[in-house]
């Protein structure tokens, strides 16, 4: 489908046009409207891709008309379509929210990198080419490094960005090495082609030929290297250290994007590599099971460590960052169970987590402008009815024990998936980490109802219409999705179809390479 190839190009092109336009147009309002318009068009395209994929399961687009495996091909399956829609939705909200929060002389640069961040994210989710995934990963990472250092007068932002960029560069380079190794042994970089040959080493594809050498060994190295990169991107223990470092120093709308745009790509990469490309039945199946088990344990550690560290945070942005680590750990546990139910639960967890962490950042952003970054100061939201209700809903959704909310359903699905797969200990870890992080969430709710010690004067606080709209939209999306789990059986069908689609490599290969 043409839109899947056009969407990253649209975002990238409009991002690069912005510095040029800034020479002609000096009005800051123009940049805000421009970025919002582009991202809304992006959201519309992502929705169109989602609807198309819902009907056809897997859609492809060949760049330059070269038939796979020759050219770069964009292949969207349901997982990529759902996550791409989520990522574009949060991008629209964050761009709109930035229009309220960000006041700077270099606003056009801010929106340039905001849009290229979105381009990198959807590029990673839609691409069907292993090397193109690396390129998009770098677009995503570079934009993230730049946005973390956006407040460049603050030495802490510079430090956080340097640390993030140094380690991030090593991580993405390791993925590049994995891509080279895959090319060296499979003779192709097309995901569908590799998925075919990893199951049938005897297969010969037109133009790319057969495999070279010991593909079991080389695939094992490629899996090890690329999975390390994905755990880094998804901030899973022990590669979680950058998130609480970089996330609080970034501008608040960017912090809100971190979960939905960057961490998401890490989880997506694991699903794509360990289920579609080197999935069950491939030559590395035995190793894959071990890798899944290791990732499962790391996810469990991440969930518990994140929940424990969350309790001692005094900075609201660090608090939310550790909460993200804990919830990404849970998503990784569900992702690595190895069943379709587990994959579906992981997708629900990713959606619920992305929406509610973003919602928390948007509401906390108002509190940060009004008072400061301490978790004591969320009390200033008390006089703002919409913000405080939204904040409460976001917290309760993360806590995940109130039935109609999406966070509750994601925990129920994960719990059932663990029990069905016989992972009793994982079910216990889920309950324990919910309990531990619950203490922190209750403390935060308690702070919400206490009078805040001080408020600042800020002109932005008088005109909060845009922020209110963004917060209301995010809250509505969360509530509607939570309700549709019971109200619309079709919603659950789509989610379970996502889980089934990831492991269904045959449809994937047939659509891409089919005659």
């Amino acid at each position, binding site marked *: 489908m043409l839109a899947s190839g056009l969407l990253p190009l649209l975002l990238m092109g409009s991002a690069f046009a912005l510095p040029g336009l800034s020479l002609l147009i000096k009005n800051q309002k123009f940049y805000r409207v421009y970025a919002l318009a582009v991202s809304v068009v992006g959201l519309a395209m992502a929705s169109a891709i989602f609807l198309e994929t819902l009907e056809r399961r897997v859609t492809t687009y060949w760049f330059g008309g070269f038939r796979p495996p020759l050219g770069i091909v964009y292949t969207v399956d349901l997982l990529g379509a759902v996550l791409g829609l989520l990522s574009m939705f949060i991008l629209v909200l964050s761009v709109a929210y930035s229009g309220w929060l960000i006041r700077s002389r270099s606003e056009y640069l801010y929106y340039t990198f905001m849009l290229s961040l979105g381009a990198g994210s959807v590029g990673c989710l839609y691409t069907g080419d292993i*090397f193109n995934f*690396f*390129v998009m990963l*770098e677009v995503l*990472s*570079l934009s993230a*490094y*730049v946005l973390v*250092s956006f407040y*460049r007068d603050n*030495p802490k932002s*510079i*430090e956080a*960005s*340097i640390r993030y*960029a*140094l380690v991030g*560069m*090593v991580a993405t*380079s390791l993925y*590049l*090495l994995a*891509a*080279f190794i895959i*090319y*060296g042994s499979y003779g192709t970089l097309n995901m569908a082609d590799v998925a075919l040959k990893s199951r049938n080493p005897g297969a010969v594809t037109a133009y790319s030929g057969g495999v070279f050498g010991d593909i079991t060994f080389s695939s094992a190295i490629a899996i090890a290297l690329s999975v390390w990169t994905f755990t880094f991107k998804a901030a899973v223990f022990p590669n979680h250290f950058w998130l609480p470092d970089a996330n609080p120093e970034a501008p608040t709308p960017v912090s809100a994007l971190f979960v939905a745009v960057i961490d998401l790509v890490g989880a997506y990469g694991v699903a794509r590599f360990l289920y579609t490309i080197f999935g069950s039945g491939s030559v590395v199946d035995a190793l894959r099971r071990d890798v899944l088990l290791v990732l499962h344990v790391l996810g469990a550690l991440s969930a518990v460590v994140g929940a424990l560290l969350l309790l001692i945070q005094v900075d609201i942005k660090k608090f939310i960052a550790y909460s993200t680590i804990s919830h990404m750990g849970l998503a990784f546990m569900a992702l690595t169970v190895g069943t379709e139910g587990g994959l579906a639960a992981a997708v629900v967890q990713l959606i619920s987590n992305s929406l509610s962490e973003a919602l928390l950042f948007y509401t906390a952003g108002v509190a940060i402008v009004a008072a400061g970054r301490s978790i004591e100061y969320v009390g200033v939201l008390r006089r703002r009815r919409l913000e405080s209700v939204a904040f409460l809903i976001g917290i309760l959704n993360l806590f995940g024990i109130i039935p109609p909310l999406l966070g509750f359903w994601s925990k129920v699905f994960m719990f059932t998936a663990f029990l069905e797969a016989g992972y009793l200990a994982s079910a216990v870890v889920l309950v324990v980490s919910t309990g531990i992080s619950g203490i922190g969430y209750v403390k935060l709710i308690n702070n919400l109802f206490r009078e805040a010690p001080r408020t600042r004067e800020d002109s932005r606080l008088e005109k909060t219409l845009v922020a209110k709209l963004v917060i209301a939209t995010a809250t509505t999306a969360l509530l509607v999705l939570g309700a549709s789990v019971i109200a619309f059986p079709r919603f659950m069908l789509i989610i379970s179809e996502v889980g089934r689609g990831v492991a269904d490599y045959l449809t994937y290969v047939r659509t891409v390479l089919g005659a």
Partner: protein
Amino acid sequence: MSDPVSLLLTVLVLSLVTNIGISLYGVFTRPSLVKKFISLTIFSDTLNSFAIALGFRRVARGYPSIAVIPSIPEDVSELRAAAGTAVDPLPQALVLTAIVIGLAVYMFLAGLIVMYYRHYGTTHVRPAEGGSIG
């Protein structure tokens, strides 16, 4: 090991692996940001050299060559002969892309290190200890 090509390839792979080890040691343990930066460039250059080495092909006689076809050939056999001894061009295209992306990231990182230096007057990762590293 009597074959000189195999020997050279083994030496190449060993030296690349050693290089990766040394450069990662540099990135993670050197206290100066500039040294970390240099180690990082060595690291990614090593990976790129590895990719170039992937394009190497054993040919029956002599060494693989770059396929140069000056005029439009008469028939397919000439093309086939050229392709038979040519190195794989795809890894070179990949490396070109990776270098361009790397350039962007390194320029940005170098800019950040300059800003760090302006703030702290040193490039030591813990500015309080690193007065001597300029």
